[in-house]
């Protein structure tokens, strides 16, 4: 399973390096969302700072759906999916590989977005370890959910519209826990941030296990 996961992750990242879709489409979209939020709230630094955790996570969630669409499009055509099945790759390995590659892309996106909120929203982070840990775990959870539900959404024509409808409600706990972690990280001490970090860990673990178990049967069906 791990061998196949590494193989698939390497392929997905290589394709992304060639196509640069995340670089030229997803990252600009994420920055645009942040800018529009900033315009909507006005120039008051107190309001911007207070709203930053929620807006950061909303921008991340919307952008992650775009990144996931792109990742899933690699196996978008029926022929490519059939070809992958004929190669005999372990379905759990395919799920893990796609999840790992997407996690890498989301971490890069999080870094850009974090720089954006620090510049635009005057955010000062006090507890960096909490923020970094929550972003890493959340990226893994977001990726696992997106790959799993992307498989459920089926072919490319359906997926473009169905994936956001399926995924965004499922990601509500990530939005809430991530925003609470962010707010705690902005405070002087972690406060309840550790508990919200646990929520993110449980979320990621549950969807990783579900994906490993269910991805194969869902692709077969």
């Amino acid at each position, binding site marked *: 399973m791990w061998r196949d996961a590494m193989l698939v992750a390497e392929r997905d990242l*290589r394709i992304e390096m060639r196509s640069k879709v995340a670089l030229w489409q997803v990252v600009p979209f994420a920055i645009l969302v942040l800018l529009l939020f900033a315009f909507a709230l006005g120039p008051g630094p107190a309001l911007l700072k207070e709203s930053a955790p929620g807006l950061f996570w909303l921008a991340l969630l919307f952008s992650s759906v775009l990144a996931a669409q792109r990742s899933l499009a690699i196996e978008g*055509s029926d022929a490519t999916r*059939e070809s*992958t*099945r004929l*190669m005999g790759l372990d379905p759990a390995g395919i799920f893990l590989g796609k999840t790992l590659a997407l996690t890498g892309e989301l971490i890069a996106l999080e870094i850009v977005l974090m720089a954006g909120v620090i510049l635009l929203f005057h955010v000062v982070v006090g507890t960096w370890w909490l923020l970094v840990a929550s972003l890493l775990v959340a990226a893994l959870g977001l990726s696992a959910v997106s790959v799993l539900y992307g498989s459920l959404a089926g072919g490319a024509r359906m997926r473009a519209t169905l994936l956001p409808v399926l995924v965004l409600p499922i990601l509500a706990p990530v939005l809430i826990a991530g925003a609470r972690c962010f707010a705690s990280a902005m405070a002087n001490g972690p406060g309840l941030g550790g508990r919200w970090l646990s929520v993110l860990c449980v979320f990621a673990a549950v969807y990783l296990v579900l994906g490993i178990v269910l991805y194969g049967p869902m692709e077969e069906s």
Partner: protein
Amino acid sequence: MASAIQLRSAVSVAGRFPVLAGVDLDLDAGRVCVVLGSNGAGKTSLLKLLAGLAPLSEGSASILGYALPSDARPLRRQVGLLGHDVGLYDELQPEENLRFALRAARVDPARAPGALERTGITGRLASTPLGSLSAGQRRRVGLALLVARRPRLWLLDEPHASLDAETRSLVGELVEEAAAGGAAVVATSHEPELAVPMADHVATMAGGVVVDLVTGGRPRIDGVPDVA
């Protein structure tokens, strides 16, 4: 000679529609079967059933000794399918595509350059992203994957489509080599003048069943089979 394909009253249903409605077919290893028929006759569905990609709803199927539907996954590793879309990745170069597919299939990726050379994907073409190649060149990359993987069952969906005269001739050579090496080959075609000369058996499909089967008897090694 070992049996490669045994289908008995095989039915495959897609949604509620029976795309195969009771197919009987036998093919030994080292033999070539060409399947003719009009659009919608069930030719591509037959290939997908033989690849373990389509469901077997009724009847029985034994492919390379694997019983469907239970052994579909191990069967797939032994099967090479060349469809209208080769199912590879547009952003990757031909050799990168082949190396990935071979590593995934647990086959030595060092076979990739030789296979690409065999199908004429050399020089500039070998380093061009697949998405920038013509339809015929992409098919040659798909053929190269079959050459490198050396599957025990070759499934070719209209293998002569989109190809120039030279590559059409190459398809015939590759099929001949595969059969001589002990692989079974099933190829669908709308061009009997090109496909039938490759065949030991010619099946004609209509309405999801085999309505006519002409069986030749001469071993492939003797050259042209006697089924024209």
